[in-house]
């Protein structure tokens, strides 16, 4: 399993007006894969603010380091592709 810094859950943002929430805001964060462990199906990803976390790749395929992902609640929902954005 890939080692990633554990999250300090007590320091996570609470439900604040300018922060948004995971489920009620149907949050999707763009993250970039740094390391991918095909064996465990997990990747270490970095968000736009520079924080890293472990992301489950269980419902996406063919992810490689450098890929941009749409992440919700620790799961990659989709790979973001520049060509699709251009369309």
């Amino acid at each position, binding site marked *: 399993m890939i080692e990633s810094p*554990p*999250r300090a*859950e*007590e320091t*996570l*943002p*609470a*439900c*604040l*007006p*300018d*922060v*948004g*929430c*995971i*489920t*009620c*805001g*149907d*949050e*999707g964060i*763009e993250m970039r894969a740094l390391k991918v462990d095909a064996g465990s199906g997990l990747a270490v990803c970095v968000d*736009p603010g520079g924080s890293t*976390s*472990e992301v*489950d790749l*269980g*419902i*996406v*395929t063919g992810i490689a380091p450098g890929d*941009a992902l*749409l992440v*919700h*609640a*620790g*799961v990659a*929902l*989709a790979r*973001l*592709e*520049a060509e*699709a*954005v251009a*369309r």
Partner: protein
Amino acid sequence: MRFVDEYRDAELGQVLAGEILATVEPGRHYKIMEVCGGHTHSIYKYGIDDLLPANVELVHGPGCPVCVIPMGRVDDGIALAREPSVILTCFGDMMRIPGSDGSFLDAKAEGADIRMVYSPLDALRIARENPDREVVFYAIGFETTAPSTALTLKRAKAEGIRNFSCMCSHVTIVPPLRALLDSPDLRLDGFIGPGHVSTVVGARPFEFIPASYDKPVVVAGFEPLDVLQSIHMILRQLVEDRCEVENQYARVVPYDGNVQALKVLSEVFELRPHFEWRGLGFISQSALRLSDAYADFDAEQRFAVPGVRVADPKACQCGEVLKGVIKPWECKVFGTACTPERPIGTCMVSPEGACAAYYNYGRFAREREVV
């Protein structure tokens, strides 16, 4: 930032606003519901209603899974958390939701071991680190979030982690939409469809709306240009007398959904016969519970959960707000007895709830109008 900046371009926003103005027919009123709380938040945060003509009205729908959790389910979670052996884990979204005798935050202040997590994977890590405790993940959310819970449960089963379980309050998007559409007091012209839910279920499940109710649906992204373009697409359908499902968020939403995610969901979950939605009452087959294959991980089977039904506070009109029958500021207690600091109804708790979003952003625009 890539994939975001392109959708926040102010000049393009003005162009889209001009196209919307050129599309609408004078004398005709358009009422469009955004289903998802994330869209509600974007609309208020970016002032999207200010860019729309006066005859285009946005109505805020039931798409905030925190707002629809009934008080009895909150009480059940608190009862679990008060078990001395239990560590209750949940998203931050749930912490301030009022139950009949306080919130998770209140229970935590009184000594219950309740911990916020960003992902169910974090809850599983807590279970690994605390083998002498029972770690319960209080799972909420629509189909966007359910795969995260499902994948974590699969991982727990594969690793043989016995001190991890889930209290499942995941809900599904189509049944409440059908219930809303069947409501006699609802008057809507079209729907902005939920974006991230659709990355999992696809756009196809919404085809019943144009087919059976003659309303257009446009599945939309969450950036301001996404929302504006979706409104324009709905208005064009209405003006051109078309009625179909369109996918504005095609950059991440496959029309038929994520096949792998749907497979995982069907393996780990099954539909509940019925589930109570705050303000909307019981809706058939509108929520998920763990399948028989995962019964050992079902907190409702592992622990004695009270399961008592608690009526919504009488003063609260969340149900009418969720159905779009009244606007947040038309509720009797909005901004007086019910504020984000001291919420009575769940629509005021979550920032994506229609009342809190309006309180935090929209009321300023309304105050300008009144002045």
